[in-house]
């Protein structure tokens, strides 16, 4: 007797091999049989017309805090994601001494944009060491978690204040090695570090004060476990990024570890960057190094409000001058009819139709509900105004707290991005799930992979796309027994409609502690998600299953 049989689907097993019609049977949390399966099961799921695939793995997330009250990392799970890697970019919630919590909370708020209540009310902060954090999340998991430990918190534990002041002494480096060893033994899947991130005071995070000797010593410990080094290089400068690729490659070769870095974008203003990065990656792989560039599937949107000056207006000198003033003076200018008339005039005869008409009014701020999701062009026409005037008036009417979104402003050229995502050395990831929550949605990149790159442009086959975010990810990270529909592997399974799987429109929700706001995207076309053999999501609803584990 099987526990579950998913029947009559198109089996895309993660290997990249051609899909075939069949069933997938589950017993004791594992895949028990794949193909034509006879025999009874306690539960059957009809997958007629649907794909049966291994659950997706998201290798770059910041769900560290959310997991403490939401073991499904919503809405990641409903998109078919059955395993997430938190603890990226040098930051994790352990190991962390109680006295250092405020510092790290500040750093987390900087990247996650979580409200303070998330740290003060939503969970009982009982641990200091990595095993304690692991146990705290493990009680409540519906999704699998493969956690990284952050270099910045390891440094802070050993060096205290000095972690953000200087390089480490040999004794401190040895202590960091011991601490990292303890974390890896307790279930960390690697170490994350950053050369870019800042704390809430604009100071470099602790990992940025490390010298090469420190990184080398920590990588040696990773080598003892064969574990991953994740890194955020100075991505704003492609030459430095390439130097970091070389550095990561040396560490990979010397210590026999995999390394990965992100973000890697393709923007039309810097069309040589991504190809140069990939060319260097190819050279380093040819030497035997493992240095995986992570690339996201989704395009980048620009969003802004008049509360803070944005470079969106950089071609409009008067706008820049007005918006760079302190708030009071800015409001004064925006309320002055002569100034505003000149600002509008600066847009030329179309009044900003071309530049601003396509802007979308976002919710989650003071924007009135009837405007949310609509274009400024439409709203302006209704008001009998030109878009530039409407932008100013709408903003003024709501204390400037109305956000506007310019969609697809970067990493948006499917004909360029598609071949890169299909590249055998490009690791699809970098979703940043659970980060920047009040700025934009970081969920549903897997749905977008299928809708844009499989269905719409045909840049990847269904089998290839599935492999890229399942078996390949498991192999890159050394996650054993996951990422494939093979007997004996964990029964992490997603059932989806290949004709409709997608991410829905971005929308604001107020489901963070203290009714904090975040942007999310719902899943489309995902019928069922099984985690370690239990149905965690079905027919549009989460179940009570708590079958997620901390996996290694």
């Amino acid at each position, binding site marked *: 007797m099987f526990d579950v049989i998913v029947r009559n689907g198109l089996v895309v097993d993660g290997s990249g091999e051609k899909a075939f019609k069949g069933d997938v049977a589950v017993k004791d949390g594992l895949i028990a049989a794949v193909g034509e399966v006879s025999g009874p099961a306690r539960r059957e799921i009809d997958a007629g017309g649907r794909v049966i695939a291994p659950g997706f793995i998201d290798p770059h997330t910041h769900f560290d805090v959310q997991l403490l009250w939401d073991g499904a990392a919503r809405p990641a799970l409903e998109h078919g994601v059955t395993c997430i890697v938190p603890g990226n970019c040098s930051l994790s919630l352990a190991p962390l001494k109680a006295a250092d919590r405020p510092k790290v909370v500040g750093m987390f708020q900087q990247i996650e944009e979580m409200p303070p209540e998330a740290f003060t009310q939503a969970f009982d902060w009982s641990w200091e060491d990595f095993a304690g954090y692991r146990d705290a999340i493990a009680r409540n998991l519906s999704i699998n978690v493969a956690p990284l430990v952050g270099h910045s918190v390891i440094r802070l534990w050993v060096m205290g204040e000095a972690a953000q002041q200087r390089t480490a002494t040999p004794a401190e480096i040895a202590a960091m090695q011991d601490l990292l060893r303890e974390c890896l033994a307790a279930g960390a899947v690697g170490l994350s570090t950053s050369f870019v991130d800042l704390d809430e005071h604009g100071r470099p995070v602790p990992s940025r004060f490390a010298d090469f000797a420190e990184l080398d010593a920590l990588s040696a410990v990773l080598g003892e476990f064969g574990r991953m080094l994740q890194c955020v290089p100075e991505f704003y400068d492609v030459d430095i990024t390439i130097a970091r690729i070389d550095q990561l490659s040396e560490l990979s070769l010397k210590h026999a570890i995999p390394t990965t870095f992100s973000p890697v974008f393709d923007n039309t203003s810097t069309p040589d960057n991504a190809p140069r990065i990939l060319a260097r990656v190819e050279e380093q792989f040819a030497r035997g190094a493992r240095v995986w560039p992570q690339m996201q599937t989704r395009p*980048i949107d620009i*969003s*802004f409000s008049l509360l803070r*000056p944005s470079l969106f207006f950089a071609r409009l000198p008067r706008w820049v001058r007005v918006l760079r003033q302190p708030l009071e003076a800015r409001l004064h200018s925006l309320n002055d009819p002569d100034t505003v008339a000149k600002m509008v005039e600066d847009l030329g005869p179309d009044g900003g139709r071309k530049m601003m008409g396509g802007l979308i009014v976002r919710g989650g701020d003071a924007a009135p509900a009837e405007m949310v999701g609509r274009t400024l062009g439409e709203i302006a026409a209704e008001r009998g105004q030109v878009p530039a005037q409407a932008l100013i008036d709408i903003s003024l009417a709501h204390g400037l707290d109305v956000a506007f979104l310019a969609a697809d*402003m970067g990493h948006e050229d499917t004909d360029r991005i598609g071949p890169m995502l299909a590249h055998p050395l490009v690791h699809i990831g970098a979703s940043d799930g659970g980060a920047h929550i009040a700025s934009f949605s970081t969920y549903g990149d897997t749905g977008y992979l299928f809708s844009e790159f499989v269905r719409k442009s045909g840049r990847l086959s269904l089998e290839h796309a599935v492999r890229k975010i399942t078996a390949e990810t498991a192999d890159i990270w050394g996650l054993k027994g996951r990422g494939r529909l093979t007997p004996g592997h964990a029964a992490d399974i997603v059932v989806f409609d290949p004709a409709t799987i997608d991410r829905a429109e971005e929308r604001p929700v107020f489901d963070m502690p203290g009714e904090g706001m975040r942007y999310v995207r719902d899943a489309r076309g995902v019928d069922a998600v099984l985690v370690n053999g239990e149905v965690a999501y079905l027919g549009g609803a989460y179940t009570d299953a708590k079958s997620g584990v901390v996996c290694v």
Partner: protein
Amino acid sequence: MSGPAEAVIAGAEIAAGHDGSAELVLRLRYPNGGQGVVVLEADKGLELMAACGAAHLDELAGHSWRKLLEGTCST
């Protein structure tokens, strides 16, 4: 006063940053003819424009790369 030749800003454009804000992409030209690109986040980009007295993106061209340092130091 004519000093030694040094890198200058050759051009500037706006691009989407990974955190959803608009960023400034600067093209630098070095005395040896080489080109480089550097990306500044919103605040730094606006500071640079102010430091160069540039009202418009196109007015950044020709300024010394040293304005980048001024820009990042001013408030």
